């Protein structure tokens, strides 16, 4: 969908993020290949969300670097988007939330409108178009946030616990959307607490513990034969700290 030029692979090298002298992300390195669905797992405070934000450019690493296809990260039209745990919707209609996001990419108003309508139609959200986004249900808002991200046509989508505040039906709908994005050629990097969800969606698992990467393993192998003791304990639902 993006022709031959790709911003991938994404490479994190020696990525470190300190707050008050404490390394919350501690010297991690990994590579994300084109077309994979990578799930970042780990207990609370492992640094999962911070890692996503560092990759997305919302945070500047204290040390280390994030490079896209060998080039240092530069601002400009981003080719990666992010969906947050709690979607932030503007106080305007669902449709206007999409056109607002598209207008920030310097789309003309006409292009923005047709792309926004396309995104709503693609994910069965047309009947919500005129509704104020803020009074939609949590599940509808998250699906709208997903459609907004899709409309931006990113090559990589970051998702930070996108379903942890949703009921099972809405969770299923969001998972279906993630699968559809992936089928469209999008590369997925997401965090989740939900082991079942990780098993349903992951091609590979990046397991973080206390700010460090313990393993980056193909999903099937991770769930059957995790390499690290901590990952084994985590999968078995044992307490980790």
């Amino acid at each position, binding site marked *: 969908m993006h022709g031959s030029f790709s911003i991938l692979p994404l490479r994190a090298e020696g990525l470190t993020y300190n707050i008050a002298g404490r390394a919350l992300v501690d010297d991690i390195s990994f590579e994300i290949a084109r077309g994979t669905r990578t799930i970042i797992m780990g207990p609370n405070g492992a640094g999962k969300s911070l890692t996503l934000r560092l990759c997305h450019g919302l945070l500047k690493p204290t040390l280390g670097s994030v490079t896209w296809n060998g080039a240092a990260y530069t601002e400009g039209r981003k080719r990666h988007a992010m969906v947050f745990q709690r979607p932030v919707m*503007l106080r*305007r209609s669902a449709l206007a939330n999409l056109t*607002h996001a598209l207008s*920030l990419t310097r789309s003309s108003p006409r292009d923005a409108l047709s792309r926004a309508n396309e995104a709503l139609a693609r994910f069965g959200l047309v009947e919500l178009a005129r509704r104020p986004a803020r009074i939609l249900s949590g599940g509808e808002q998250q699906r709208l946030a997903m459609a907004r991200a899709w409309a*931006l046509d990113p090559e990589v989508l970051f998702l930070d616990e996108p379903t942890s505040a949703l009921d099972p039906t809405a969770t299923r709908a969001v998972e279906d959307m993630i699968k559809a994005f992936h089928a469209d050629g999008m590369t997925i990097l997401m965090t989740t607490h939900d082991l079942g969800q990780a098993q349903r969606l992951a091609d590979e698992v990046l397991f973080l513990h206390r700010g460090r990467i313990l393993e980056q393993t193909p999903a099937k192998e991770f769930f059957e034969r995790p390499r690290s003791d901590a990952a084994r304990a985590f999968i078995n639902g044992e307490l980790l700290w």
Partner: protein
Amino acid sequence: MHEDNAFTAAVSLILSGDAVLGEIVRLSLAVSLTALLVSAIIGLPLGAALALARFPGRSFLVVAFNALMGLPPVVAGLMVYLMLSRSGPLGWIGILFTPSAMIVAQSLLITPIIVSLTRQVVEDLWGEYEEQLRSLGSTRLQAIPTLLWDGRFSLITTILAGFGRASAEVGAILIIGGNIAGYTRTMTTAIALETSKGDLALALGLGIILLTITLLLNAAAYATGRIAQKVAG
């Protein structure tokens, strides 16, 4: 004159549709609403910019605007007087003792209120929206119109605070306008004058009108805000 009689006289004065009274009310509203418009045009974007911009001296500006919310109207009046008087730096414009000068003085009083309250509203909203907007590629400059629009319901209250200050003050417009009958006499300056002259009926009548207008405006703004918020979430 007893207050009872003054009150009765005030009501009959209002009901009579007195032309002088009408002119005073008209000028008061024209001056305060124009000053409010000027201040909103300056203060809303300035307040939002102050909320989002990061530059040395920002804290000083924030404190300065907060302090200016308490600027005594007579001091604002004095400052504008010094600027606009014949020997002042802007004396050549020749607008001292005109409604235009009164609008300038009131704008000086209201703008800090709008700037400070807008800054607070926008700062709070930015706290909620920052990650999402930055993720979408929005610069802080691009976020200004987005946040002003999304803060519109809170900003109605900000505008009302500005109007309240303008419509209630007497010190600035008394110094700048001179309380000239039929030309720069407003409700508040007339109330001050008529009270000191002992014409309590006119003063009280004007007071009732002023309170009523303020009440109606606030009720209308409140209702509009509530209805719009219900519709827009």
